[in-house]
């Protein structure tokens, strides 16, 4: 009997079945007490508060957000390039150093990348207190590793024949190295690096929710006070800031600078990053007195933490990742095929923008108003946020596709939805799934955020352990968390290779 494999189209739609258990679970836990609050929250989106007090606070919060996001983005780019180069094979091939050093750096980067910036933030806050530098460093640590990974992948793609042709000229080793890596790095920055500024803004907002300043802190405080109109003022500002950052990048950074400006930018970036490095090293070498005291108790705790509860938490985290990934992957194509008309597309674009705009911890807090904390609720908030991102990608890719097949199917009388599925989506399905597998890596890391707020999985346990200075537990949870992320990345890499 012939074995039939699932194709990319079915794999894009099938995961939507998780909606059934999630819906059942959410309906079971439903209580209508908070429905009024939810409707008030939704209505307030149209009536944000704009008095002078709010505006003054808004300007100061925006300043903080821009400062944290811009600094962490800039530093993570510079050090991402540095570590990307240090972990690449080409560096060791040209400089003649043992490749094992590169492998060790790669391993180190995998480990620091596997921990979400929020987790770094919570840890560093406990050690150094609430400080803008903590925000910058927390974002920088995983971002440096992510940028390094992307740059490393680009460097591995340099044609070995071109490498040989430059080495044959027998120039200075560093001259040959910089000549070969310059453009792959610049291209990565143009295609990926600038997009990271948007991510840095989102991460700053999320860290802010946990007290590290910026718009996130105001969002959280106004949510806590149930001042939804005020909350929406900050949320819309965050949205405008993200859109504005994209606009600035498109029109300022991507154009060709003249040669003098190029040199100034190059030298300025180097000086700024070296100064920042010294500043942050100095900052990190002076932990608070309170931390030193609590660190003395490291490993004093003797409990049976590695037991049923840890396994249960790991299980919850994995389940949460799977559920949320399923929603993020299949909701966009599923809704696109159902609402396959202009109005539907417009509505979905608006909805996807809101999902992207509202940080998952806020979504879960809103959902908790009329439901009980559960894996389903956490998966829904995380899944919807990421579905907003995957929808944007799917939609823009479908709009850029050549439509001849779609028109051909339409012309032979095929229904519009079938023409869309076979004439447009089919062409895009593989690359869509490949992107989703990358998104899934991000999503597994993000389980920590909703975990902290929604009392689910390792994220919740981590915050509990950090708050009680139980460093032994913190190390175990971090280790388990890293392992889940690393295994998830390995599986996703295999999936990606199948689709590219």
């Amino acid at each position, binding site marked *: 009997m012939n074995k039939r494999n699932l194709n990319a189209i079915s794999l894009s739609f099938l995961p939507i079945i998780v909606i059934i258990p999630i819906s059942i679970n959410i309906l079971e836990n439903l209580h209508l007490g908070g429905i009024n609050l939810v409707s008030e929250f939704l209505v307030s989106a149209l009536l944000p508060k704009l008095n002078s007090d709010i505006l003054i606070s808004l300007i100061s919060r925006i300043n903080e957000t821009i400062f944290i996001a811009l600094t962490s983005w800039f530093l993570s780019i510079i050090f991402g390039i540095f570590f990307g180069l240090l972990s690449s094979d080409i560096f060791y091939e040209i400089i003649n150093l043992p490749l094992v050093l590169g492998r060790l750096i790669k391993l180190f980067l995998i480990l620091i990348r596997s921990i979400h910036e929020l987790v770094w933030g919570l840890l560093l806050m406990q050690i150094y207190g609430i400080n803008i530098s903590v925000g910058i460093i927390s974002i920088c640590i995983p971002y440096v590793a992510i940028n390094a990974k992307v740059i490393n992948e680009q460097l591995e793609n340099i*044609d070995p*024949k*071109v490498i*040989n*042709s*430059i080495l*044959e*000229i*027998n*120039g*200075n080793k*560093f*001259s*040959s190295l*910089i*000549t*070969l890596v*310059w*453009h792959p790095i*610049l*291209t990565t920055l143009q295609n990926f690096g600038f997009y990271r500024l948007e991510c840095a803004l989102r991460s700053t907002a999320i860290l802010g929710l946990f007290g590290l300043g910026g718009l996130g802190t105001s969002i959280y405080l106004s949510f806590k006070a149930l001042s939804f109109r005020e909350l929406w003022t900050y949320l819309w500002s965050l949205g405008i800031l993200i859109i504005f950052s994209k606009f600035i990048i498109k029109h300022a950074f991507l154009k060709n600078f003249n*040669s003098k400006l*190029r*040199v100034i930018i*190059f030298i300025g970036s180097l000086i700024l990053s070296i100064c920042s490095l010294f500043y942050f090293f100095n900052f990190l070498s002076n932990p608070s007195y309170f931390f030193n005291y609590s660190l003395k108790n490291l490993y004093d705790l003797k409990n049976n933490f590695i037991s049923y509860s840890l396994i249960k938490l790991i299980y919850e985290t994995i389940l949460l990742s799977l559920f949320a990934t399923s929603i993020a992957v299949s909701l966009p194509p599923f809704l696109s095929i159902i609402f396959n008309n202009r109005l539907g597309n417009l509505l979905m674009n608006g909805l996807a923008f809101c999902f992207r705009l509202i940080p998952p911890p806020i979504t879960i807090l809103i959902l908790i108003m009329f439901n009980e904390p559960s894996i389903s609720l956490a998966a829904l908030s995380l899944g919807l946020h990421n579905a907003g991102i995957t929808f944007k990608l799917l939609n823009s890719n479908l709009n850029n596709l050549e439509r001849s097949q779609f028109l051909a199917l339409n012309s032979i009388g095929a229904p519009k939805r079938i023409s869309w599925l076979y004439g447009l989506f089919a062409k895009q399905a593989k690359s869509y799934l490949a992107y989703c597998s990358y998104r899934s890596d991000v999503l597994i890391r993000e389980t920590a955020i909703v975990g902290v707020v929604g009392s689910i999985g390792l994220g919740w346990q981590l915050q509990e352990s950090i708050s009680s200075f139980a460093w032994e537990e913190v190390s175990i949870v971090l280790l388990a968390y890293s392992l889940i992320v690393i295994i998830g990345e390995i599986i996703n890499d295999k999936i990606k290779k199948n689709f590219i």
Partner: protein
Amino acid sequence: MRKPILELKNISFSSQKSCILKNINFKIYRGDKIALLGKNGAGKTTLISILNGTLKYSSGDYKVFDKNFFELNMKQKKLIGTFWQDLRLIEDFSAEQNVNCGLLGKKNFIFALKNLLNISSFKKAHECMKILDLKESIFTKNIKNISGGQRQKIAIARTLIQQPDILFADEPFNNLDPNFIIHLKDILINKKIINKLKIPETILISIHRIDLLDSFNRVLALKDGGIIIDLKKENLKDYHLNKIY
């Protein structure tokens, strides 16, 4: 007695990807202009790769300037230049930046950095490109937006700007228009246009066109991984060519 500058003794090479070379023996003397002939897949590119050290031979002995090739110092290695059939230019660089890469062996790190930032002097690169009939309008163009023939001229310019003593070239006359082929032959073999540019004294060029053999003073031919002809040009007869093809 003349001393060879390059000598191959019983060189063999086998790999799953490349054509196999068996017991290759020949010497190259200063001033030799060698045409390397052979059918497609005869092993010409593999032989050139061994000659410039890109491929490590499986057995035998390969000496340049009386030294094992892999014991050559940097200064000696810089005397060897190679032109590749597949050009091996750096995509995303402009034409002048690519040609300037040929100077990496003679200049320092700051020059490399300035070349990347597009603020270095391109005077020598421009001279070299003009010699190869390249128009000024393409000097600053990205290599991706340049036609195949012009890309080939840029790759040749990058090799010539290195000013090597020994040049290995893998089919440099392919894809070029007939007038330029004569011009290039004049530069490389007849040294007609020099204009401050030192043209390599010793060359080995793989070619397919028999009509270009006139300018060479020696012919080497490969068949089934072995050298079947190693003759002075004047001794080459038609039946020799029949043996090759």
